[in-house]
């Protein structure tokens, strides 16, 4: 199975949907590095340029209504998505680990620095060795200003809004890269572009490995696909 080809296609389809929805975006190369996890050969998936960047203008009367929502007349709204996933070789539909950072940034041109509106870190790990971390839902999203992979890209951004948030780990569906792309598409693409991307995603969507015995008995991998949670 062409793992790189599958993920590259998905990233390209996502960026197509974004540009057709009015965002400025350029696709990025999906890179697979060979690594070992639990003594098994795996791929580590990254983006060559670290993150996908979707940018759109904020202006009064703009079709996206952002000027009203964000409360300023002239600026820019940006979405950054940065993944790191570990995929078991030989069974490409199994993701052993995933960490995806998602950042929403608004730039009011009358201010000196952009603001981090929302920083989210979605991750899970189903590695076999060791106990799962205490008090960590298997799949969760964490609201945070500490975005490690996106750190260089948000350099100079005002993080105050997110810094004061308490610890907050929300149990979720497995939010791997395809799931996070779908989240953004559902919230920010035009209707047809969102439907096109959902259709592309539903052709195949990677499952997490459910090889940890603590969770296998509790979870049915098929039912936990996030794309099953959306109507139409």
């Amino acid at each position, binding site marked *: 199975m062409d793992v790189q080809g599958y993920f590259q296609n998905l990233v390209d389809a996502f960026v197509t949907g974004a540009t057709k929805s009015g965002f400025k975006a*350029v696709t990025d190369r999906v890179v697979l590095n060979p690594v070992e996890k639990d003594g098994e050969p795996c791929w580590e998936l990254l983006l060559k340029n670290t993150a996908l960047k979707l940018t759109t203008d904020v202006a009064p009367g703009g079709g996206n209504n952002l000027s009203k929502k964000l409360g300023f007349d002239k600026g820019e709204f940006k979405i950054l998505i940065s993944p790191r996933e570990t995929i078991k070789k030989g069974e490409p539909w199994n993701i052993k680990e995933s960490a995806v950072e998602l950042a929403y940034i608004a730039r009011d041109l009358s201010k000196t620095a952009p603001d981090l509106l929302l920083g989210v870190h979605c991750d899970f790990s189903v590695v076999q060795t060791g106990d799962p971390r205490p008090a960590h839902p298997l799949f969760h999203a964490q609201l945070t200003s500490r975005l490690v992979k996106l750190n260089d890209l948000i350099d100079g951004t005002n993080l105050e809004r997110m810094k004061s948030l308490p610890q907050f780990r929300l149990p979720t569906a497995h939010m791997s890269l395809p799931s996070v792309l779908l989240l953004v598409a559902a919230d920010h693409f035009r209707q047809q572009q969102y439907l096109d991307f959902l259709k592309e995603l539903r052709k195949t969507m990677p499952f997490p490995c459910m090889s940890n015995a603590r969770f296998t008995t509790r979870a049915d991998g098929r039912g936990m696909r996030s794309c099953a949670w959306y109507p139409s």
Partner: protein
Amino acid sequence: MKTNRTVLLFEDDEDDRPRIIASLKKALPKDVEVIPFLGKGTTKKGTYEARILKDFKDEIDKAELIICDQDLSTIKDYTGLSAQVITAIAHAEGIPLALYGRGPEDYMMKRMKERRPFFERRFVLHLDSAGWDTEEFAKKARIILDGCQRIRQFLETNLGKDGQKVSDGTPAKWMSKLLDKPEIINRLELYGSGDQQYLSSLVASAKQGFATKAVRVLAAELSYWLWDSILRFPGITVNTVAAASALNLSPTAWNHAETQALFAPALYRGPFGVDKKFWWRNELQAIVERHGVTDGFEVLKLKKMKHAEASSCSVKPSMPAGYYCMLSEKPVALENSRGEIPYFPAGADLARISRKEFAKIAPWAGLKVT
């Protein structure tokens, strides 16, 4: 009666015209007739476009390519005829169009300064007024003609000459079939998601009565798209400089016969791949990955090739490159270049502008400097 293929030439300079015709006749296939437009015609009223379509219907119907001077103005009975009129006719009739101008070539820089979109639905040839090489000019015209013919024949075979099946697919789908690369359809959509949305409306309108010309029009548009966008901006295919840069190889290491042999399976052999060489970017990468390493430099070292040498950024040579500057046409590092250029296709992730060139062009092109 044998029907010749024809190429129409619109050139108003009476000294240049025979020289251009002579060079074209030498370069083009023997069955191709070069017909110069000399004006005259019987229709005297109406727009130039209407008059040409009426008086020269046969020539227009048989034309496989139009070659047109950008500075037309003094053709007999057609004083003031402009390339814009010929462009309109070419687009409406689905005849591939190649414009040419005089003066040294500075294509990409000029286009950005004038804020022209990256997809302009025409080919551009060049006559350098300082040292006009008619043979180079004619050779390029031949490449364009052959490429366009190949695309048209593919579509006629797959869509039928009457274009009944045109609306069964999207331009990206037809392009992926033409190139025999179904796996790149999403990347092609990215090359088409900006200014090329009209390509989709073209397909939709095939249902509404222009079906008889649908194949011809679609063939011409796919030809422009392939030449001016997909092959020009590295992402799906790469030219020789971009290939070396993406593989982290110096030009010398890349051009070495052993390296070329190693990566030969990735050579692009589609339309227009004659004059310049292109490679399939994914296939270059696949060759690297099969060796279990991260780039071309590692492959050459693994194979103990003595000519192995890493790439270097044209802005800061101590750094490896990885990308391609569209203005300087040199390898460049991510850190020393700017991406997300609005004029570039969203799928061309290797296409960037070096910081030095960007600083020069940004004010002209309306780009933010910071």
